[in-house]
C-alpha cells in the first residue's frame, strides 16, 4: 500500500550513494560509496561512518564536508532525505 511504503521511506534507514571527490578517490573505494542514512542522521554522523569505511585511509577525510548539489551542509545539519550527496575534501580551484 502506497501510504505504508512512503512512511517506511521516511522513518527507516535507507541506503544512499555518497559521491567522493578529489583525493578521497585515493582511498581505494572508487568514486562513490553506499552508506545507511536514517531520517535523523546528521552530516557529522555520516562523515564518521564514512571514516570507518575509509579505515587506514581516514586521514584523507580531514577537512572534508558533506554537500548536496545546492549547498555545503553544516556538521549538525540533517542529511536530506533525497538528492545527490557528495563528500568534498578541501577545495583547490582557480
Amino acid at each position: 500500500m502506497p501510504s505504508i511504503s512512503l512512511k517506511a521511506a521516511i522513518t527507516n534507514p535507507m541506503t544512499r550513494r555518497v559521491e567522493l571527490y578529489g583525493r578521497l578517490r585515493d582511498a581505494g573505494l572508487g568514486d562513490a560509496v553506499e552508506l545507511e542514512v536514517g531520517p535523523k542522521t546528521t552530516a557529522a554522523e555520516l562523515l564518521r561512518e564514512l571514516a570507518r569505511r575509509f579505515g587506514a585511509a581516514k586521514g584523507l577525510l580531514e577537512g572534508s564536508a558533506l554537500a548536496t548539489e545546492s549547498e555545503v551542509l553544516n556538521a549538525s545539519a540533517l542529511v536530506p532525505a533525497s538528492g545527490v550527496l557528495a563528500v568534498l575534501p578541501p577545495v583547490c580551484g582557480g
Partner: protein
Amino acid sequence: MILLTDARLDPAALQAAVAAPGHGGLAFFAGAVRDRHEGKAVVAVTYEAFRPLAEKILAEVAAEAEAATGAKLAIAHRTGRLKVGELSVFVAAGAPHRGEAFEACRRAIDTLKDRVPVWKKEHYADGTSGWLEGCTLG
C-alpha cells in the same frame, strides 16, 4: 556569464560579457597551468569539479563581487586535463572606472579559490601524480 566547461576558455567572450557603454575599466585575471610546483616538473593538471554546486558557487562568487563593487562579473572555469600554459580560470570585471574593476576581479578570484568545489591533480614529469592541498569548506 558563468561557465564550467571542458572546452578551452575564450577570453574574448568573457570580455564581451562585461563590456558596456558605461564601462571604462575592464580587469581580467587568467590562471594558467605552471610547469613547476614545489620543485617538481609538472606536465599537466586535471581539474575535477562537483559540477552543479560548483556552478552555483561560481555564480555566488560573481554576485558577491558585483554587490561589493558595482562591477559586472563573468567567470569561466575549466575542467578536465590541461597541459602547461592552458588557462584553468578566467575572471572578467567591467566597471565605470579601474578601481572597482580591479577590486572586483581580485575579490572574485580570491573567493573562488576558497570556495568553489574544484580539485587539482598534478601530473609530474616522473610519471607520478598527486592531488593538491586546499581550503576546507563549510
